[in-house]
């Protein structure tokens, strides 16, 4: 019964999405208030029905209704409750329900909130949102129905892939999807602006919080995924340039670019067409990521069960949606008035460069990820593109971008001059010079790349501090401390957010630099009682035994590690899940501020010992710490924006409206 309720709810949601799209498009065109409010109601109802379907699937998982094929394939009665819940979105079909659910919740949020948004724009945004929703609901119902029944129903189910039986599964996909799907709002705003033929500062002011929210979720989601793969895969790395990692990185890069270009559009009315293009491309990249994971064009650790029919549908969907959006762009965007002019030394110019670098970085990742597909399609050759390519292309672009990061916030809008600018950046420059010289003196000239890395992180962190210091210095002559508290209180939250995010970038850079330069590892066969020394730490295998988990058996090895903070016990396991005949690795990790000791165990060696891989990971936690700092900066900034939007609403400040040159 519960499956039929879910199925019916999904079908109704699809109908509502179509109603939403049609009534709002026509309503906005004819300026028909009744049609438009009907469309808004459809958006809210659609979210309600998808919530019912999602809850139906969740209930089936929790109660173990194995007559539903999807439930029988991904859970069994021995699976812990947490992972039976997580399994709801651990499969392809379930994750697509989560996807459309989040999409509909965003749509409902726009329909309900946002009083000051121009009604015709709001209607068109929601109309596009309805088209996107209908396309994904159609995908779900036609190619990936989660509610298919099994007859006869099995007594017990198979098992969720053991690699996924981890708290990471419960949080990583929903957060990441909130980011991916959040970009659909930017897409809808972009297409709506093209349909209207009108972009103004209010457009940017409206879309920016949504982009920022999506960016925050993407940042957290990607970082959580990196942490999860670090501790669960037993490979001892934090980023592998796996196609699916790249698929999440590309929307993030474009969202970062969009975030900055929206700022220019909002404050200065420039970069109009470019911002619209970015808003289309960022969400298109999210969809391409979906295509990648679910079509089987590439092999990846993340790939879902592959079905070519799904690949064809998603590709068709991308072709139609992005194709129509870009077609509209080619038709309407040339009519937008070119934006306000700016000089080569100005904040606008720095952000334009930032956008170019981010777009170039996206292009290199795109090329590296899809090159194998294109080569295979053209020549039938199987090739793979690995980390050397990405390190050689992506890293230089990002290093240049990082140099730019501390310039941007120190520049004035419209026109600035070089001399005062360099004076403002004296402290960050000094800090990075000290970092370079110090690193070369301490570690030798052989570590020149690492020295550059340290210099960049000093540049970013001190640069972020300089943004605040510039805000807080007294306006007239006087001691820095006089009235400092007042000036700190008067600093908008957005400035704190900016400083946090840019400093977070520096912290991440510090971690990456240390990992790239000083990571060390060893692979040896150990017998109990044996020790070895790695990066100055003595590690001893103290015990080895077999244990029984709820739905697995494991070989468990205990290690004693001498760290700076005293002796620690690390436990590393190799688990075997009999239901799915799968083996997983649980690495033993000693987490410390200065770095981690990471141990994963393998098979029995030929000589009778246990194969052990040990790593020393200096400052690795800085990588994720910095990323979370960026996300936190985003949240701080978002908290500020809500206030500002409200103020704008009250004052009704006449913003520089940019009408199209030819309507």
């Amino acid at each position: 019964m519960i499956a039929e309720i879910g199925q019916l709810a999904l079908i109704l949601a699809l109908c509502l999405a179509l109603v939403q799209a049609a009534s709002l498009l026509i309503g906005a065109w004819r300026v028909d208030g009744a049609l438009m409010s009907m469309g808004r109601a459809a958006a809210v109802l659609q979210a309600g029905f998808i919530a019912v379907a999602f809850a139906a699937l969740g209930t089936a998982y929790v109660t173990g209704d194995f007559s539903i094929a999807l439930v029988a394939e991904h859970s069994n009665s021995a699976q812990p409750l947490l992972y039976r819940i997580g399994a709801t979105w651990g499969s392809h079909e379930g994750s697509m329900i989560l996807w459309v659910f989040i999409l509909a919740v965003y749509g409902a949020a726009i329909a309900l909130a946002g009083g000051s948004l121009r009604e015709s724009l709001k209607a068109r945004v929601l109309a596009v949102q309805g088209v996107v929703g209908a396309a994904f609901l159609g995908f779900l119902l036609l190619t990936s129905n989660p509610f298919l029944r099994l007859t006869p129903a099995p007594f017990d189910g198979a098992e969720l892939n053991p690699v996924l039986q981890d708290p990471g599964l419960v949080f990583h996909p929903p957060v990441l999807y909130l980011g991916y799907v959040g970009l659909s709002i930017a897409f809808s705003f972009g297409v709506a602006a093209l349909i209207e033929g009108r972009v103004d500062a209010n457009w940017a002011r409206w879309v920016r919080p949504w982009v920022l929210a999506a960016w925050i979720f993407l940042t957290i989601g990607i970082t959580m995924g990196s942490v999860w793969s670090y501790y669960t895969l037993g490979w001892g790395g934090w980023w592998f340039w796996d196609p699916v990692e790249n698929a999440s990185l590309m929307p993030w890069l474009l969202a970062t670019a969009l975030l900055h270009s929206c700022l220019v559009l909002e404050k200065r009315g420039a970069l109009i067409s470019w911002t619209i293009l970015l808003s289309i491309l960022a969400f298109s990249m999210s969809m391409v990521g979906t295509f990648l994971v679910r079509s089987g064009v590439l092999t990846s650790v993340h790939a879902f069960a592959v079905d070519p029919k799904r690949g064809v549908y998603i590709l068709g969907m991308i072709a139609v949606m992005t194709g129509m959006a870009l077609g509209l762009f080619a038709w309407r965007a040339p009519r937008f008035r070119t934006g306000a002019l700016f000089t080569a030394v100005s904040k606008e110019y720095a952000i334009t460069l930032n956008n170019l670098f981010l777009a170039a970085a996206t292009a290199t990742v795109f090329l590296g990820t899809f090159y194998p597909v294109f080569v295979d399609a053209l020549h039938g050759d199987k090739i793979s593109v690995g980390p050397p390519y990405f390190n050689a292309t992506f890293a230089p672009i990002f290093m240049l971008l990082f140099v730019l990061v501390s310039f941007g916030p120190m520049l004035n809008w419209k026109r600035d001059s070089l001399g005062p600018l360099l004076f403002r950046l004296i402290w960050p420059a000094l800090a990075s010079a000290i970092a370079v010289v110090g690193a070369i003196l301490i570690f030798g000239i052989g570590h020149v790349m690492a020295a550059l890395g340290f210099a960049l992180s000093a540049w970013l962190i001190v640069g972020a501090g300089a943004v605040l210091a510039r805000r807080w210095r007294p306006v007239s002559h006087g001691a820095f401390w006089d009235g400092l508290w007042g000036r700190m209180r008067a600093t908008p939250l957005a400035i704190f957010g900016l400083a946090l995010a840019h400093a977070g970038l520096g912290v991440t850079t510090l971690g990456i630099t240390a990992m790239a330069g000083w990571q060390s590892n060893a692979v040896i066969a150990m017998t109990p009682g044996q020790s070895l020394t790695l990066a100055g730490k003595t590690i001893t295998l103290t015990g080895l035994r077999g244990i029984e988990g709820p739905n697995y058996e494991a070989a468990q090895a205990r290690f004693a590690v001498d760290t700076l903070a005293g002796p620690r016990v690390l436990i590393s396991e190799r688990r075997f899940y009999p239901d799915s005949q799968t083996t997983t690795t649980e690495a033993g990790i000693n987490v410390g501020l200065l770095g981690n000791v990471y141990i994963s165990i393998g098979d029995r060696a030929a000589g009778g010992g246990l194969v052990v891989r040990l790593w020393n990971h200096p400052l690795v936690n800085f990588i994720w710490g910095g990323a979370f700092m960026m996300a936190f900066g985003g949240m701080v900034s978002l908290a500020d924006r809500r206030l500002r939007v409200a103020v704008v609403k009250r004052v009704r400040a006449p913003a520089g409206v940019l009408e199209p040159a030819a309507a």
Partner: protein
Amino acid sequence: MRRLIFLAPIVLFAIVVAGFALGLRRDPSLLPSTLIGKPLPRFSLPPVDPKAPGLTSADMTGGGPRLLNVFGSWCVSCRYEHPVLMALKSQGVAIEGLDWRDSRADATRFLAAEGNPYERIGDDEAGRTVIDLGVAAAPETFIVDRQGRVRYKQVGPITPELWTSTLAPLMARLKSE
């Protein structure tokens, strides 16, 4: 001129979509072996059971087409594949075994418990020959013709469906060559 710039995104996008559409028709998990059509690399391996013969590349030539199955008692998918191999043996298919990274005691115990589908077994404990053969993971199975040339490589277990749909017709063709 200005209009052309605005057309660039959709043109690039169309090219990318065309590339994806072509890419969809290919299966990236199919890794063709570079050995196809070439003779097996030379090897000479000791037996697992000291009383039985070992396996050399010369054993693979002459007679009819035969299978060379890379396995290990530690390999879960091989256990899954094992009943299929036993069934093929009873149909008279010649199968040679290559025991990979395995102790002789474990392999002997495995074959005693599950049955031995192999005519000869070579013991590649060090894994040298397996590298020459370009094996990534067990089980892998090579179909070798009368002249000792590799004609097909199957990555992963042989299933009954795969045997009837692909491998059996190929074996029949090789027999009549």
